[in-house]
């Protein structure tokens, strides 16, 4: 009995929200009509001014008004079209309390348990575990916020919550190919879902959401199922499979082949950002394999150091030694020079 009362209260809340939604639509029509009437008034005023200008032979003024009318007429066609779109929408009749109540019974029969949170004004249904292309995505809770139905044209009144989430490897907010940050991309279901909510057909609403969750559209997913276990390269964002991603132990992130490399000394895999280039051999090395030269204090790879001295300093040293051993022209004896 208590549950029945709860459901009746909930049905009343749905009716209130649907009624507010209808009122919003009427206000939109009102606003469009006012806007259109204003445009008509502007044309009428311009027509009068044009008459005056022509009668008084003010050709310059007449030409200006003509151009303004021409410009306004271009907008006029657009405004008329918008008004027609808004006014042509057939608003469904307000559902009855008994209809909405019958929807609840049908939900329990077709979709399983209906969860009601009267305080929060939330109605929810839990789907069966969903598997698409052999990828298990777990069950989802479809949470409909009754109070938000009246804002249907502004924001989505429902959320899709993964109960045993198996998010995409490249984006943990994508829990289903068509769900991101708890929002469902309705695709072909957009219009019928909206119509169902406008008419208080909550069972149809939950059924259609369930059908979308059980269907995979490879043409336009947030993350394609074939890339589900992949990782997004931390650097360039490219999605790569588990086997093609490289983990940088320095920054603890995954990278694609292009954005990663390995240290030529220790063979550790690192991202391009964490690898350094040895100034002597120009090869990529990790920070652990770079040591300062004792003479010039430049960091070079350990392969380029000989007794803690870099190749450049060794070469400089050799050159200096050669110069020292080279016979100085000033030391050459005069007698030999004359010969």
């Amino acid at each position, binding site marked *: 009995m208590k549950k029945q009362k709860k459901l009746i209260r909930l049905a009343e809340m749905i009716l209130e929200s649907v009624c507010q939604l209808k009122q919003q639509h009427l206000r939109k029509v009102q606003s469009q009509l006012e806007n259109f009437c204003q445009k008509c008034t502007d044309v009428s005023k311009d027509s009068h001014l044009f008459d005056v200008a022509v009668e008084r032979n003010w050709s310059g003024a007449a030409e200006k008004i003509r151009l303004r009318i021409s410009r306004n007429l271009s907008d006029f066609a657009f405004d008329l079209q918008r008004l027609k779109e808004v006014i042509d929408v057939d608003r469904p009749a307000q559902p009855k309390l008994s209809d909405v109540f019958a929807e609840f019974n049908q939900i329990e029969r077709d979709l399983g348990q209906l969860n009601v949170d009267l305080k929060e004004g939330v109605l929810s249904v839990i789907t069966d575990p969903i598997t698409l292309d052999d990828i298990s995505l777990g069950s989802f809770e479809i949470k409909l916020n009754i109070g938000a139905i009246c804002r249907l044209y502004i*924001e989505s009144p429902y959320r899709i919550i993964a109960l045993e989430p198996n998010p995409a490897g490249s984006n943990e907010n994508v829990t289903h190919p068509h769900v991101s940050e708890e929002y469902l991309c309705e695709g072909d279901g957009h219009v019928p879902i909206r*119509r169902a909510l406008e008419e208080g057909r909550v069972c149809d609403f939950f059924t259609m959401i369930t059908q979308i969750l059980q269907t995979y559209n490879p043409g*336009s997913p947030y993350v394609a199922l074939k890339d589900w276990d992949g990782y997004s390269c931390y650097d360039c964002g490219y999605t790569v499979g588990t086997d093609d991603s490289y983990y940088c132990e320095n920054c603890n992130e995954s990278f694609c082949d292009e954005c990663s490399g390995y240290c030529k000394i220790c063979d550790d895999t690192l991202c391009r950002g964490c690898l350094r280039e040895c100034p002597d051999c120009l090869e990529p090395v990790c920070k652990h394999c770079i040591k300062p030269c004792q003479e010039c204090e430049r960091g070079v790879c350990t392969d380029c150091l000989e007794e803690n001295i870099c190749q450049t300093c060794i070469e400089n040293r050799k050159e200096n030694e050669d110069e020292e051993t080279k016979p100085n022209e000033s030391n050459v004896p005069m007698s030999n020079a004359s010969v």
Partner: protein
Amino acid sequence: MQIMYINNAGGGFANYMDIEENTSIETLFSQKMPNEESHDYLIRVNRQPVPKDYCLKENDRVTITPTKIDGARPVLQNRPRH
């Protein structure tokens, strides 16, 4: 006679419509959804599944819902985030 027809495919409209007496649900489906297979849809009359030879009655409520609906990443989103 008049029935309530709710089509959750495409436009998702719900409206009253006139049909001939003794029209079966199968006939109605083939009239309304030509080129479509009935097994791709959940067909309910008065919120209950019915056999295909079920004869529609005055004021019946017929609902047709696709079993597969393609979701998609939207081009324009009607929400503040993302």
